[in-house]
């Protein structure tokens, strides 16, 4: 029994549910073998990976779906061994090089050079090149991105890169200049609703319009999340009820509660409480960007415009310094402390005004 997200993943451009025109264009693109390297970017759950897999299928036929997971070993000049998970078929290989941390340059280079030096399966000469799919390129170190530049050009005849990123703002211009960037916007709520209705129909379920709409609104444009939520709702309660509870991710609730803790009391004692909650989130591997974003969002709901401005200013400053420093918790905590000070002042002012 596979999850709905996998079960109903479209496998050809004619079957995708939204951005249909873009699908048609991608299909045109691969008709000729001379397309450049590709860079897919868009928010998570927008459907980048789905489109890439369809594209590969168009290129090589259904053989690309025979996937194997394998570990690959690399060695750094200082003789440190690194092991990386890869997913590969006979025609392509997928790797998340940022898993190798600061050694990502070595991984990327070894991989491309190896791949480029072997010819394509020549059985029926489907394509003259292989594809290397690099995910999360925006997380690659600048060093690794630099290393890609000339290599991408040199081996272009035997090896095409497909890069995948959440945002291109962290991809260096030299790489962007070498790729065709393909923007994959999130689906709109209407589009999400229609996908959900479709899936339910195929499952033989009836879902009230109101519920589908609520799920779509909660999913923030992330289709994967919407489908997972929908399936979870089905497990919780079927037949559906239009007012039934929609399960939200635990971590998101936890961040909201944390914000409420901050709003309740602005004392050093409470700061300690908050600290342990932040540690809790970090331990569970919740990305700091998300912690910052949802914390800020929740805190702002209780502030008026002047305070909002001040808080955002502070937040943007601390969230930035977090990328320059090494210990995330310092910056998160500094933000909370600063917020408490601002908020306290604000409350006192309001009381005095009354």
């Amino acid at each position: 029994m596979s999850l709905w997200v996998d079960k109903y993943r479209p496998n050809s451009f004619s079957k995708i549910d939204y951005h249909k025109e873009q699908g048609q264009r991608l299909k045109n693109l691969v008709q000729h073998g001379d397309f450049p390297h590709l860079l897919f970017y868009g928010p998570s759950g927008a459907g980048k990976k789905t489109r890439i897999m369809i594209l590969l299928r168009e290129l090589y036929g259904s053989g690309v779906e025979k996937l194997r997971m394998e570990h690959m070993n690399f060695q750094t000049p200082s003789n440190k061994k690194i092991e990386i998970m890869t997913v590969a078929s006979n025609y392509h290989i997928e790797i998340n090089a940022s898993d190798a941390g600061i050694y990502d340059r070595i991984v990327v280079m070894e991989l491309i050079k190896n791949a480029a030096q072997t010819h394509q399966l020549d059985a029926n000469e489907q394509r003259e090149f292989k594809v290397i799919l690099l995910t999360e390129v925006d997380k690659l170190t600048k060093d690794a991105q630099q290393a890609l530049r000339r290599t991408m050009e040199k081996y272009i005849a035997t090896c095409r890169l497909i890069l995948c990123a959440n945002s291109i703002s962290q991809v260096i211009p030299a790489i962007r200049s070498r790729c065709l960037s393909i923007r994959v916007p999130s689906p709109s709520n209407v589009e999400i609703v229609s996908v959900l209705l479709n899936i339910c129909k195929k499952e033989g379920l009836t879902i009230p319009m109101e519920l589908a709409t609520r799920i779509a609104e909660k999913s923030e444009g992330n289709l994967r999340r919407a489908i997972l939520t929908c399936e979870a709702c089905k497990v919780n309660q079927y037949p559906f009820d239009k007012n039934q509870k929609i399960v939200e991710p635990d971590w998101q609730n936890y961040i909201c509660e944390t914000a409420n803790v901050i709003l309740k009391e602005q004392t050093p004692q409470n700061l300690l409480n908050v600290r342990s909650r932040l540690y809790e989130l970090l331990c569970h591997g919740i990305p700091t960007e998300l912690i910052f974003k949802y914390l800020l969002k929740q805190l702002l709901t209780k502030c008026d415009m002047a305070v909002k401005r001040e808080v955002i200013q502070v937040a943007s400053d601390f969230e930035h310094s977090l990328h320059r420093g090494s210990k995330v918790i310092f910056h998160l905590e500094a933000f909370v402390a600063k917020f408490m000070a601002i908020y306290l002042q604000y409350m006192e002012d309001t009381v005095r005004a009354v």
Partner: protein
Amino acid sequence: MDAFLRGGKASAGDEASTSKGRKEDKKLKKPTPWVEKYRPRTVDDIVEQNEIVATLKQCLQGADLPHFLFYGPPGTGKTSTIIAAARQLFGDMYKDRILELNASDDRGIQVIREKVKSFSQVSVSSVRPDGKPCPPYKIVILDEADSMTAAAQAALRRTMEKETRSTRFCLICNYVSCIIQPLTSRCAKYRFKPLSRETMIKRLNLICLEEKVSYDTRTLDLLVDMSGGDLRRAITCLQSCVRLKGEEGIVYDDILEVTGVIPDNYIENLLDVCRQHNYDKMEHFVEEILSKAYCAPQVLEQIQEIIIPRPDLTDAQKSHICEKIAVCSWRLQDGASEYIQLLDLGCSMIEVL
């Protein structure tokens, strides 16, 4: 993975398949992207960069070659220039006379000392096997030199001086400030300017003609504007548009789509919302822009373009916003959250508008 790598025939030393020598005859069969297809093959094909072209022509006539340092933004022809020149200088012996090291190669101190040294110590004659004269030196190309550590650059200093008799160096980088001063002073420096509109249009025209692409001038103009003097980007975009569209010709909107430019009405709306001092709408807007996968630096750039010529804003307002744009852009460079930075900018605009 193994099957993926083993898949093909083993091909030890298959370097040649990627070098141009063989590509020439394979070109008919092997579809290469247009950037590679239209990469200049001789020094004469290089457009715009007159100074260096003149110098190189003299070298081709037999003048001695200095050490070079090429710097300039991406896609202005740095790599192409030196490679084309080297091909003309050495002809078939290209492979023996050139050592190309780029950012993908390991370029630590050790490597610089050993690899470069052993390469340059073998002395070379001044005639080709076929009897034609050729310059009695080799060239080491250090492409993407700005990613070399300062220590490795320092190690290069000695090597460069010691081996001048038999070896010339050519350093290539985007940012000349990343190269240590003792190296820059040893080289003849050439700045590769972003290509001018006219040259880009001429070159693109040529390609369109070769590839039988139909287009109108407005489209080409936009393409050139969007690529900011980066010819590679322009060619890639052009080809992408053509291929994405299939058989039809390319039009204005196609270019907008592949370059990731945000439609102007988005930015106008954002300004309007800020003028209404409506925080909620502004926040909603920021989320909307990001969910459409437009990137924050692009938003900043376009806001700036729009507000500067606006007659209805005072200088004080403009300078305030531009200052914020600068700060946000710097923070984004360090990897700060796009969402929070755009909110910050939005708040500033609400404040001053």
